[in-house]
């Protein structure tokens, strides 16, 4: 196998890897700005310079020449090479800044050049704290600058589009954003304009940078030149906790990080997963952070007559149990493609315990919304999870008629909104006792609900979602909820401020705790009031149980899913033939 010697250590390689990617893959840090693994290599930041040589060969015989000690004579390139654009070949000898003063000096000088006109506004810059330029200037840069004259002033706070702001002074012209619009999103809306010391990325006159993936350039930007309109100046990086999660705005289940401070989700950034979303996230997924903070309910309530009154959890769940008990087999359960697999499974067990019927889930399909990439027509995260459990789209005409005829005496709705989706109206539900698990106070079924139970959203719960291509991925809590749930607390990141914070800590803030519970916690409390115990309990054990008993979920335990998820068996192997191609 061909070998390359990097800093005196030899590595084997296959194929034709680029030197920079090969080093990064083997844990050898090389500073770089413009290189990105999924885009073309312009080699314009000149930061990843290395010294490359190869054993000298005799021109006639092709033999490797050796010196007096019998060591091969290494002939180096006359100048340093950019490792990003260099393809590794057999026998090459590479020196990085760790073993070559020449490389160290070159990288320090490159940084000195890059910093000539870079403003020293790190204290107010959104990128500070996770800024490659800042980190690399500390690690590889000069102690000071010899360029002590007035810096070039370029346009600041330019609104490139509805979601992205440009600060041209901070730009180091790595062209990552331009290459993203040219090669990845293919909108071609950005370019570098002017030249020399005056250049910066810009849209042409009359064009707004409004493509549906525009916010990816914010993460790509190695400096603070491109920032988010929403997140600009909202929080410092070190004040937030980031939790690996998945997005729930559509059926793609793109991997993301949820950034939380004071129990508010402040932004959503992509998390690399080559099998789902690579490095990208559509803007609609990023802007969904508001849904975790806004219009959240204040607590459980029991409607007395027309006016909803806030109640205790015990009383509300007791009331729900009474309603279900009196309805018996006339109780109808609506599952949800917004809820996790665990919650839907719990609902099925509740229906069994009561003797009622699961009518199905309400599909939320928006034809034409999908783009064949990271946006889908389906606006729910877990439709396939429902179908793998054996819950199918609700027969709207049938159930509308049954609800209107008053046949359904109790309707149990899991994390959905049958009124807003057009299944029934508030008036037609007058004769029905509605128990509603809901996320937002904007839920239109709320006026008809006898018992309204705030449910934890994806950022607050533990659970599994199955995306449109059958990949099971789990979420872990990113923010705390009111009340004590040991299962949720155990899954919180260990260094979270809100995990170990006490009310005596100065930064502790309880004002944004939502009084909600995960559905997998509420449903067993209801069955307990009915005198039945559902086993197993807790999302981890539920998923273990489902993976063992349901072949459509074979192997899908929480441990197996990890942070990137696993592909389940094909859809055809579990879907009944009569439902093929229904949606």
């Amino acid at each position, binding site marked *: 196998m061909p070998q390359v010697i990097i800093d005196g250590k030899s590595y084997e390689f296959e194929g034709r890897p680029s030197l920079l990617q090969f080093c990064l893959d083997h844990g050898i840090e090389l500073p770089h700005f413009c290189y990105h693994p999924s885009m073309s290599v312009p080699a314009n930041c000149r930061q990843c310079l290395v010294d490359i040589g190869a054993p000298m060969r005799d021109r006639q015989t092709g033999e490797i020449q050796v010196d007096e000690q019998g060591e091969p004579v290494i002939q180096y390139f006359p100048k340093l090479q950019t490792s990003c654009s260099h393809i590794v070949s057999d026998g090459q000898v590479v020196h990085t800044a760790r073993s070559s003063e020449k490389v160290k000096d070159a990288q320090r000088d490159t940084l000195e050049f890059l910093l000539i006109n870079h403003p020293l506004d790190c204290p107010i810059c959104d990128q500070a704290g996770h800024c490659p330029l800042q980190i690399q200037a500390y690690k590889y840069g000069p102690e000071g600058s010899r360029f002590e004259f007035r*810096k*070039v*002033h370029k*346009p600041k706070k330019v609104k490139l589009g509805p979601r992205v702001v440009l600060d041209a002074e901070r730009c180091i012209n790595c062209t990552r954003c331009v290459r993203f619009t040219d090669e990845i999103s293919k909108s*071609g809306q950005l370019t570098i304009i*002017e*030249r020399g010391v005056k250049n*910066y990325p810009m849209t042409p006159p*009359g*064009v707004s940078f409004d493509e549906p993936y525009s916010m990816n350039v914010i993460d790509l930007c190695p400096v603070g030149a491109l920032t988010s309109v929403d997140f600009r100046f909202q929080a410092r990086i070190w004040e937030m906790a980031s939790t690996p999660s998945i997005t729930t705005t559509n059926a793609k289940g793109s991997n993301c990080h949820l950034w939380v401070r004071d129990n508010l989700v402040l932004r959503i950034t992509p998390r690399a997963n080559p099998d789902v979303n690579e490095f990208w996230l559509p803007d609609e997924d990023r802007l969904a952070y508001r849904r975790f903070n806004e219009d959240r309910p204040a607590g459980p309530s029991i409607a007395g007559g027309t006016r909803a009154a806030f109640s205790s959890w015990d009383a509300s769940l007791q009331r729900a149990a009474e309603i279900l008990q009196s309805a018996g087999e006339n109780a109808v359960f609506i599952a949800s493609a917004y809820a996790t697999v665990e919650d839907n499974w719990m609902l099925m067990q509740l229906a069994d315990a009561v003797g009622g019927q699961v009518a199905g889930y309400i599909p939320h399909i928006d034809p034409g919304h999908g783009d064949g990439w990271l946006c889908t027509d389906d606006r729910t995260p877990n439709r396939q999870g429902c179908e793998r459990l054996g819950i199918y789209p609700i027969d709207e005409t049938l159930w509308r008629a049954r609800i209107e005829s008053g046949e359904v005496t109790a309707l149990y709705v899991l994390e959905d909104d049958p009124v807003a989706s057009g299944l029934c109206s508030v008036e037609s539900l007058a004769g029905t006792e509605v128990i509603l698990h809901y996320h937002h106070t904007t839920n239109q079924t709320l006026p008809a609900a006898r018992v309204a139970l705030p449910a934890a959203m994806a950022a607050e719960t533990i659970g599994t979602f199955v995306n449109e291509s059958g990949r099971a991925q789990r979420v872990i809590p990113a923010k705390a909820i009111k009340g004590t749930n040991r299962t949720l607390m155990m899954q919180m990141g260990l260094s979270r401020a809100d995990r170990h914070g006490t009310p005596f800590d100065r930064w502790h803030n309880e004002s944004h705790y939502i009084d909600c519970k995960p559905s997998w916690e509420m449903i067993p409390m209801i069955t307990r009031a009915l005198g039945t115990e559902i086993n197993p309990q807790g999302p981890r054990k539920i998923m273990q149980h489902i993976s063992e008993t349901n072949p459509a979920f074979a192997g899908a335990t929480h441990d197996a899913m990890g942070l990137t998820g696993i592909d389940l068996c094909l859809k055809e192997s579990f879907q009944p033939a009569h439902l093929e191609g229904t949606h």
Partner: protein
Amino acid sequence: MADFIRNPVVALPDPNPESHFSEEELIFTEDEKARIAGWVSQYPTSDGAVMWTLWLAQEKFGFLPPEVLQLVAVELSLPYAQVYGVATFYTQYFKEKKGTFVLDVCTCFSCQFCGGYDILAYLEEKLEVKRGHTSACGRYTLQEAECLGACGSAPMMQVNNGPYAHNLTPEKIDELLEAMEAGKPLPFVSVTLPQDEDEMGGNRRTDAEAVEGYITPPRSERTQ
């Protein structure tokens, strides 16, 4: 450039500029389209032909406002942003309306030492126009240029992105301007090369003779 060093501020281009040409004017004729197609066919991708096409558009429209750049982008099936980036990179592409005569006076090192700024100041005074601006009559645009590669005959200037005027003196400028006003185009003047020093009696400051065409013929092919 000197002004930029003193006051290094880069302005933001107008995001919504007014249109200079009507829809009827903004077309390439069949003949022009054929020429563009010819250039495109010379390159593996159509972006190779973008500079030729911009040049053609500038000759046709006089300058390259955003709507013309968009026309070029459509003609070459390129992103508008890319064409805009190319056009703003080169100072020879005029992004705004210029005078009939665009005078690029070199003020880079060699010309500066030989009096480039004096020439620039003389032109400013004579044409009553500030550097970087177009005269009130709309005939002259005076610009400061970086090295145009004719240091051997400094100070010099370039007229309308074309012929060079070498070894400038105030008298010579007067003559040049008179000739331009009279409608006589500036002749192309070949600059002597070092190999010709002997012929010129070792004096490289002497004006070279005018030759037809844009290429200095090799010595062996000289007629005289």
